[in-house]
């Protein structure tokens, strides 16, 4: 035999075929039977086949070695091209198209190709068509498009009217739907796939024939239409078989039960059957070329398939640029009899923009997946590139590479095809935008730094604050601060001292709630005071800026505040029950002495007049404040014991709210412990001096949570006595200016009110701190538990 020179394509093709025939896996000899099948599939007259066999030397050798096989293939190609069989022509014929095998390979395919001109996989297509029209053995009837154009090949008649072919197909028991063979030029996987599909298609074919026929007819017509296209043999991924299954699908036939594993068998099947006619060798060659080179994606949709899908789409939604609503799609795909779970998965994969509707591309992808699934292919985990919605055109070339298979949000807009309406991104984008905005806002809040010694706590609060979400619908917080500052103006009744002095201590914020600026915070404090007002009710002049807190406890706070503010408002003059907040450091220096003074008179139960006399300062108005009394006790060496008494009384003499407020407050706060008093005292002194402001806080906190937070507050503890001492030290002897009377009284009333409010605020702040600390404690305990050597194990 003369040597054979093969082009690369041919080489590949032939070797694939050889492998296919090499059932014994000898790598050297093609199984005779298989080879013969193959040759038969070539749809050549038997004498030609014999001749070829002879020529290639197999007859001589008795078997098909590789070279013989190749030669034979080449001869087949030659024969299919209509050239005379000559050994010499083996190498001389240039541009010989690859041999076509119907259902296997046959030149008929070539005819098909020519006839069909559909972008489908060459083999597949004819195969599938063949499936329907399997019958004509040796009859290149790919009726599909059997336009005379391909009639160049005398061997094949082809060009049968579609209808008859369909019927004839029915005769074919095993229509080899798509030639598994066909894909040799294409990657083996596709081959296998096709086979599978074919089998599936075959299985279905029978029952479906009639309806299928109709479909096919339509299909074929399309084919004819596209004949001109030619050369478009796009990769044939499941297409044909798919078609088969489609047909069954739409016709409501049982799902294709492809024989997944039985490739070889299916191949056998197909080989025996297929005899579609392919015409148009040139087309075929082109196709083969294309296939071998371009086809590597098993999920690609062939043009024919796509056309089919499009038609189906039209039946549901005439407007190709419109959407198919989810319900309609559900109905449609339910007909495929796939399990709902799988359909659900398919939907997830194909609804790219997650809008609950399918565009044309999405629909095609979904349909394609359904088809594949019905043919036994497993659903991919993610949408294959070729099925991405952006693939609009029917080009078989690699589609625009999918930048990111994931990222629904970010990618979807980018990949949205022009068809997609802009609505698609909106939903998904809203979320990520929100995310980002949240992040940003998270950073926004200024976090005031507390000057209190509890830096650690502070920082933690800061953390919490920044971490908190600002999405409070009630973002009065953010809006409030500006207002808050204004509201600092005390209402007529209650002169809420801007508490610059007093507030300083607090302004640092005790991370009351997140996103509170210092002013706002003060505001919140005042707001908080309403909470304290649960006990007493000094009207917090400014409405609580924070309507909600990020922390869970915030809800309670909100409630409290809401309640409190409601209750607090009407308070102004009535400080019926003075908040338990000990006299917060009064803004004025004088407050201190006044405090002392006041305390004194307070101490003197019933000494209303003197009290008022002394009450030029506000402090006197808070006679019941523990600290005052205490203060008084210290400074004026009044009997400390009077303090509690004073507190108990609702300030008869003073008649001011502060005292009352102080009383209950005091009672509330105090557990009868001296600590409280000291705290309050300190607080009062604190009012006098800014620097002292912070100290009372921790002290107070300590006071409140003394029992529980002791361990944590130890750090603060030591400070307390110091502070107290300092406070005490600063206590000048309280001069009692007894004679001021009205003016003094009013002034003191005012001051007391202010102090009241401030203290109330402080109270609420501290309560907040308490909550935080409790939480901390819990977590610390947990950690401790975990760290402890597993003693309990």
């Amino acid at each position, binding site marked *: 035999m003369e040597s054979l020179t093969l082009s690369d394509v041919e080489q590949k093709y032939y070797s694939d075929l050889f492998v296919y025939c090499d059932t014994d896996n000898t790598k050297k000899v093609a199984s005779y039977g298989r080879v013969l099948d193959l040759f038969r599939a070539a749809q050549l007259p038997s004498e030609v086949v014999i001749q070829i066999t002879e020529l290639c030397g197999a007859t001589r050798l008795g078997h098909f070695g590789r070279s013989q096989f190749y030669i034979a293939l080449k001869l087949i190609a030659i024969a299919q091209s209509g050239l005379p069989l000559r050994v010499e022509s083996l190498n001389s014929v240039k541009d010989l198209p690859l041999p076509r095998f119907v259902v296997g390979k046959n030149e008929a395919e070539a005819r098909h190709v020519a006839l069909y001109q559909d972008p489908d996989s060459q083999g597949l297509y004819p195969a599938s068509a063949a499936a329907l029209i399997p019958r004509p053995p040796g009859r290149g009837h790919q009726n599909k498009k059997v336009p005379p154009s391909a009639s160049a090949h005398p061997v094949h008649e082809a060009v049968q009217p579609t209808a008859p072919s369909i019927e004839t197909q029915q005769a074919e028991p095993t229509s080899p739907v798509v030639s598994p063979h066909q894909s040799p030029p294409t990657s083996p996987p596709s081959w296998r796939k096709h086979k599978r599909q074919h089998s599936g298609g075959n299985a279905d074919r029978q029952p479906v024939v009639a309806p299928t026929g109709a479909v096919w007819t339509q299909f074929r017509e399309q084919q004819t239409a596209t004949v001109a296209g030619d050369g478009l043999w796009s990769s044939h991924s499941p297409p044909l078989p798919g078609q088969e299954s489609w047909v069954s699908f739409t016709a409501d036939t049982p799902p294709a039960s492809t024989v997944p594993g039985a490739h070889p068998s299916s191949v056998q099947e197909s080989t025996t059957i297929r005899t579609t006619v392919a015409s148009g060798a040139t087309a075929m060659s082109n196709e083969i070329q294309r296939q071998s080179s371009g086809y590597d994606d098993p999920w690609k949709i062939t043009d024919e398939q796509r056309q089919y899908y499009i038609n189906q789409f039209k039946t549901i939604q005439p407007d190709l640029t419109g959407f198919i609503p*989810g*319900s309609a*799609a*559900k109905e449609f*795909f339910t007909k495929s009899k796939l399990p*709902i*779970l799988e*359909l*659900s*998965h398919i*939907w*997830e*994969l194909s*609804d790219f923009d*997650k*809008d*609950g509707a399918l565009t044309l591309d999405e629909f095609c992808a979904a349909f394609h997946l359904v088809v594949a699934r019905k043919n036994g292919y497993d659903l*991919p*985990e*993610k*949408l294959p590139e070729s099925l991405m919605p952006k693939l609009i055109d029917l080009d078989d070339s690699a589609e625009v590479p999918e930048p*990111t*298979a*994931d*990222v*629904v949000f970010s990618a979807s807009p980018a990949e949205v095809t022009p068809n997609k309406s802009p609505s698609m991104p909106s*939903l*998904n984008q809203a*979320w990520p935008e*929100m*995310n980002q905005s*949240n*992040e940003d806002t*998270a950073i926004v809040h200024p976090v005031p730094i507390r000057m209190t010694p509890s830096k650690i706590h502070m920082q933690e609060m800061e*953390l*919490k604050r*920044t*971490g*908190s*979400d600002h*999405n*409070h*619908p*009630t973002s009065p917080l953010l809006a409030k601060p500006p207002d808050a500052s204004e509201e600092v103006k005390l209402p007529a009744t209650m002169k809420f001292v801007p508490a610059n002095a007093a507030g300083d201590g607090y302004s640092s914020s005790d991370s009351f709630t997140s996103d509170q600026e210092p002013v706002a915070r003060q505001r919140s404090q005042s707001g908080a005071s309403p909470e304290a007002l649960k006990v007493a009710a000094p009207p917090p002049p400014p409405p609580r800026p924070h309507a*909600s807190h*990020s*922390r*869970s406890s*915030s*809800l309670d706070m*909100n*409630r409290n505040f*809401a309640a409190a503010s409601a209750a607090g408002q009407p308070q102004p003059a009535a400080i019926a029950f003075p908040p338990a907040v000990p006299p917060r450091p009064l803004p004025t220096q004088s407050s201190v002495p006044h405090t002392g003074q006041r305390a004194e008179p307070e101490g003197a139960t019933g000494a209303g007049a003197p009290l008022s006399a002394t009450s030029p300062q506000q402090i006197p108005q808070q006679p019941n404040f523990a600290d005052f009394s205490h203060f008084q006790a210290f400074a004026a060496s009044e009997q400390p014991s009077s303090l509690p008494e004073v507190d108990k009384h609702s300030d008869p003499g003073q008649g001011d709210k502060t005292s009352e407020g102080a009383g209950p407050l005091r009672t509330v706060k105090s557990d009868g412990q001296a600590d409280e008093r000291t705290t309050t005292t300190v607080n009062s002194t604190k009012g006098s001096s800014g620097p002292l402001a912070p100290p009372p806080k921790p002290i107070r906190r300590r006071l409140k949570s003394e029992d529980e937070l002791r361990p944590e507050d130890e750090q603060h503890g030591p400070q307390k006595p110091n502070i107290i001492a300092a406070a005490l030290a600063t206590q000048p002897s309280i001069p009692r200016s007894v004679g001021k009377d009205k003016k003094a009284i009013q002034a003191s009333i005012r001051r007391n009110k202010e102090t009241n409010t401030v203290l109330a605020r402080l109270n609420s702040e501290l309560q907040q701190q308490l909550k935080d600390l409790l*939480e901390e404690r*819990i*977590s610390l305990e*947990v*950690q401790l*538990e*975990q760290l402890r050597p597993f003693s309990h194990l």
Partner: protein
Amino acid sequence: MPHCHVITQPAHRKETKMAVCIAVIAKENYPLYIRSVPTQNELKFHYTVHTSLDVVEEKISAAGKSLGDQRELYLGLLYPTEDYKVYGYVTNSKVKFVIVVDSSNTSLRDNEIRSMFRKLHNSFTDVMCNPFHTPGNPIQSKAFDEIVSGMMAPSA
């Protein structure tokens, strides 16, 4: 590789959002989806989630009363227990999400929890958009599973 949502939390990030249990509860208070890191008895988590529903209800009713229709979806920390903390989130259709986080994971910030809920909500709406999913049925969506896996602590 998840096909459409990727934002999984890589383990090396300094603050990985690690939930121990994530649950989606329907309006009628039966679980649509519940998944936990199967370290020990999962039943404990089921129980925790169930009890947390009470707190959720309470918060919903409280918030609803005060603010009317404008209600915060994120409920925040429902309650802390010895070992873990439970966070809640409710949608406008009264579907509740509950995330149980290990207490030792104190580095978890509130904002992170919120973003976890946001992601859950997004994927939940995606599941709802699927016409093949019947609302009220347990959620069987791979995409949703992937999102949840991304948020959960690696199974010990």
